[in-house]
């Protein structure tokens, strides 16, 4: 066969591969573990009711959760799966959302973590543009269906959050909307991708 230029979705990937499904689950479990452990750690540090071993244990659990999530992204990246970029951005946004309200207001850590959000958000936005530029026509459709799914889920979440808040439930941290949007877009792309396999 003559040397034909590989097009949009050549060996470099772009689309989520089969193994990416396992890595996405691994990443979600890692993120969930991190968020739960970190929230417990922040609570333990605030209340100072814990004994000496609890705080280091929760710190280790947070790091382990984050490590699992980062490992899943690295596995995708090493397979040449360009979806890894988008997932790295999503991971950063979700982790940032878990961190943002844990620091004292106005402290350098709070300002730093707020600015840190720009890095994963930029990565996610860049990966979307890259995908739109490099994808072939089928994958553009898959991405569109995924983004439509993400938009619908986010709209539903925003309306539900606003309605519950106005009904008197505790105030919703709207920073989570970005996390919901990126995660639901990712889930939508994986679901749409399965339809065409």
């Amino acid at each position, binding site marked *: *066969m003559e040397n*034909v*230029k*590989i*097009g*949009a*979705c*050549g060996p470099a990937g*772009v*689309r989520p591969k089969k193994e990416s499904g396992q890595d996405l689950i691994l990443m979600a479990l890692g993120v969930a573990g991190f968020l739960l452990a970190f929230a417990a750690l922040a609570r333990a540090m605030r209340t100072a009711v814990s004994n000496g071993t609890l705080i280091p244990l929760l710190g280790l659990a947070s790091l382990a959760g984050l490590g699992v999530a980062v490992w899943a992204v690295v596995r995708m990246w090493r397979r040449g799966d360009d979806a890894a970029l988008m997932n790295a951005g999503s991971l950063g946004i979700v982790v940032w959302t878990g961190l943002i309200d844990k620091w004292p207001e106005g402290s350098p850590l709070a300002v730093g973590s707020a600015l840190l959000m720009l890095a994963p958000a930029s990565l996610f936005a860049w990966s979307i543009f890259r995908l739109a530029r490099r994808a*072939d*026509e*089928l*994958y553009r*459709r898959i991405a569109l269906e995924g983004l439509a799914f993400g938009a619908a889920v986010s709209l539903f979440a925003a309306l539900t959050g606003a309605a519950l808040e106005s009904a008197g439930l505790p105030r919703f941290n709207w920073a989570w909307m970005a996390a919901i949007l990126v995660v639901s877009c990712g889930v939508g792309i994986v679901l749409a991708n399965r*339809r*065409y*396999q």
Partner: protein
Amino acid sequence: VKNRLRVLRAERGWSQADLSARLAVSRQTVNAIETGRYDPSLPLAFKIAGLFDLLIEEVFEPERPPIADRPREELSS
């Protein structure tokens, strides 16, 4: 839209990966077209037909015949 892509590809001894490289699309796109899960755009359909040196209607055909080819009774019902 039905198509003869799998047959035409097999006649030339090409794998899906070979065909996808020639068309500059992904192997998943070729597979989705062959299995009828995805109908290609008009430019890609022309490109496929051109690659096999055929007319577009020799590769693709509608699920139902065009209106002009349908029996008069079917159109009136």
